[in-house]
Structures are given as structure tokens and as C-alpha cells.
């Protein structure tokens, strides 16, 4: 592994971090932590393996640590709370103004999978490796993540904690 190879991954690490975390500075902090940890754990790097997956895996673990530390800010939201029945959207073009806010309301474990696949265009197997979860979990989180985002964009219920009476 060399600096040039890591430098080449920087733009994509930044893009993913920005989409995952939202805030520009917090995202870059996460990238910086990732790079520092990568260098400190160089002995765990297996030459010939995929550098991108390895870096994304490091970032993922750091992010989990982060979320655990700031437990106050990530109050678990009832996963199905904002699944309101909605009509199919009239337009397939999504307004970017709403997208960032909507994305932030998708539970993070689903958001991560959704972004790695839809934005970073990783294969399901690469995502499973980066996040350290089984393939089946990747697929179910992707399903729920896409559906959540669709519901939020289409219905935009006033509160994410709104309960649906069934």
C-alpha cells in the first residue's frame, strides 16, 4: 500500500462520508480518522486485497464507535414509524433540496448500505465485506433503505416518530 493509492481513494471516501454524515466538517473529520487508522493498522492490510473495501471498512467501524459515543444524538427511531401508505410519485425526478434531509432520516444502517450500492456502486458482496455483515442482511437493509427513502420523499410526514395505526 502506498500514499498514491490512498490519495486516489480520497475523493470517493469524502463523497461517501458527506452523504452518510451530512455535515461537511464532520465528514472530513471521519475521513481523516480513517486515514490515520489505516496507517496505524498497516500490518493488517493484506497485499493484493481491495484497498477501497478495506478503507470503507475502517471508516464504517470508526463511524460505529462515533455513534456509540454520541448516544444522545442518535435516539433509536422506530424503524417502521414513517412507513405511511403513499401513492406512487408523479415525477421520477427527485428534488435535490429535499434529498439530503430525507436521507438523514433513513436509519443509518440502512443509509450506509443504500449509499454504498446506489452512490458508490459497490457490489453486494463488497458491501457485505466492508460492513462485516452477511449478504442477506445487505439485501434486506437495501430494501428497507430504498423504501424508507421513497416514503419520506413522497409522504414527508410531519414527524419521523408518527405512529401508523394498523
Amino acid at each position, binding site marked *: 500500500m*502506498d*500514499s498514491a493509492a*490512498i*490519495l486516489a481513494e*480520497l*475523493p*470517493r471516501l*469524502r*463523497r461517501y462520508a*458527506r*452523504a452518510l454524515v451530512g*455535515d461537511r*466538517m464532520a465528514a*472530513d*473529520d471521519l*475521513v*481523516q*480518522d480513517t*486515514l*490515520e487508522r489505516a*496507517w*496505524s493498522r498497516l500490518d493488517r492490510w493484506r497485499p493484493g486485497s481491495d484497498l477501497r473495501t478495506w478503507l470503507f471498512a475502517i471508516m464504517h467501524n470508526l463511524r460505529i464507535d462515533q455513534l456509540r459515543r454520541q448516544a444522545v444524538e442518535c435516539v433509536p427511531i422506530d424503524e417502521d414509524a414513517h412507513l405511511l401508505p403513499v401513492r*406512487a*410519485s408523479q415525477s*421520477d*425526478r*427527485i428534488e*435535490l433540496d429535499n*434529498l*439530503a434531509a430525507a*436521507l438523514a432520516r433513513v436509519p443509518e444502517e440502512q443509509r450506509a448500505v*443504500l*449509499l454504498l*450500492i*446506489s*452512490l458508490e456502486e459497490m*457490489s*453486494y458482496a463488497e458491501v457485505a465485506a466492508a460492513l462485516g455483515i452477511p449478504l442477506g442482511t445487505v*439485501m*434486506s437493509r*437495501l*430494501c428497507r433503505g*430504498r*423504501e424508507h*427513502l*421513497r416514503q419520506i420523499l413522497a409522504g414527508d410526514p410531519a414527524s419521523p416518530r408518527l405512529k401508523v395505526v394498523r
Partner: protein
Amino acid sequence: MTTATVTDSELNAFLDGELAPARCAEVERWLAGHPEAVARLEHARAQRDALHRLFDPVLDEPVPEALQQAAQAPVRRAGRQRVPWQQIAAGVLVTCVGAAGGWFARDRQAATPVAALSVPLPRQAAVAHAVFSPDVKRPVEIRAEQEEQLVTWLSRRLGTPLHPPRLGALGLELIGGRLLPGNSGPVAQFMYHDAAGQRLTLYISTENTGKRDTAFRFAQEGPVNVFYWIDGELGYALSAGMPKDELARVAAAVYAQLERR
């Protein structure tokens, strides 16, 4: 003949190119009779396009200097990162040693000039800039997201209402601020950055009692350029590693905003 029901996971795999070719054909046939599934599929595709439109611009942003350095192997990094502020810090050390010398010698001297104990405003500001602005993780104590809290706190500590100028028109966004020790009391520092990640700090001191207002003055402290001026009790110093004329433009904008208050 009806095709076995297609699950949501299969629809996603179809979209993401993860489905076996034989099954793809079946899914396509099944979709013909399920318009609501087609709509979901189209929406997932629209999500993908929208995510790219929203976040792809990040790929073209200049990578902040601190991240570029963090991408380098640590050995090479250590030597490079220290240079800028040590140059200034060394200068301050001389000032402090000089001051301490004066202090220890006070018994023998009739009067130690007070000025010897105080570091000039542009130098204080330049050191504060050089110490905090390269810090990627904790450049400020309170971030701009809590601007109201930041302003209330700093105003209370300095004993005068402070307002970080709005420099959005110049492409500068407030990151936040912090409280610092000055020569004899608290001073405030606000930090800004531009789209390229270049940082600029505004240092505000209240230790200028008795001094007259001054026009803009320019000082260069190592790699840091500083514009400073005194307005009543308040001393302002604007520091950045940017060219003098560019910094002058920002200084003029800051001055104009403070005048209007």
C-alpha cells in the same frame, strides 16, 4: 403460465445488476403485469440518479490540505506539519523570554516597562491562527451550528457584545469560535473557511484601553499575513495564509460590517 412472485430483494438485485441472467428475463415478464413494482423500480433508479447529482460534486472539490497530508505515510508527515507555526512560535518564545528576563530583573530595575510583558496584537493573532487553523478535528471550541450560544458566551466573557461578521459574499463561511487568553484577559477568535478549505481567523481583543483608534495596519508573521486595527477598546486582527491584497479585501468587508453596528 405465471412466473413465481418476485420479491423486493430480487427487484433490487435486478436494478443493481446482481441477478442471474436467467432470472432477469422472468422478472421482466413479471413486471409487465405489475405496474406498482415498475413504479418502485423507477423510483429506486431515480434515487440513484439523484444521489449522484447531489454528491458527485464532492469528487471535484479540492481535497483539504490536512486530508492530503493524512493520506501520506506518517513518517513523512510529521516533519512537514510542524513547520509553519514553529517559525512564529519561536519568535514569541524570544518575546516571552525577553519579558521574563525583564520580570526577573525587576528588583534591580527601577521600573520595568509594562509593554515588555505584552505581546503585540498582530503577533498574538498570528500565533493563535497558526496554532488552531491547521487543526482539522477541533479548530474551534463552539461550532457555527451553535452560533447563538457561541456569540452569547464570548460576548459575556469579553464583556462587550460581539458579532461574527457575515462573509458569505466573499465565499467565507463561519466555522465557529473560541475563547483565548490574551495579555491580561480573555480574547475571542472566530474562524472562517472558503470552499477550498483555506482558513481565516478574526481575533478580537478588549485590552486596548487608552489607545487611540488606528487605521488598517499590516503585519507579516512567518507564513501568516495579518491586517489589524483598533477601534475604541477593541482590537481586531484578521489572519490568514492568503496574499495581502486578498486579505485586505476581507479586512475591508469586516471593517465595514462592524462600522454598521
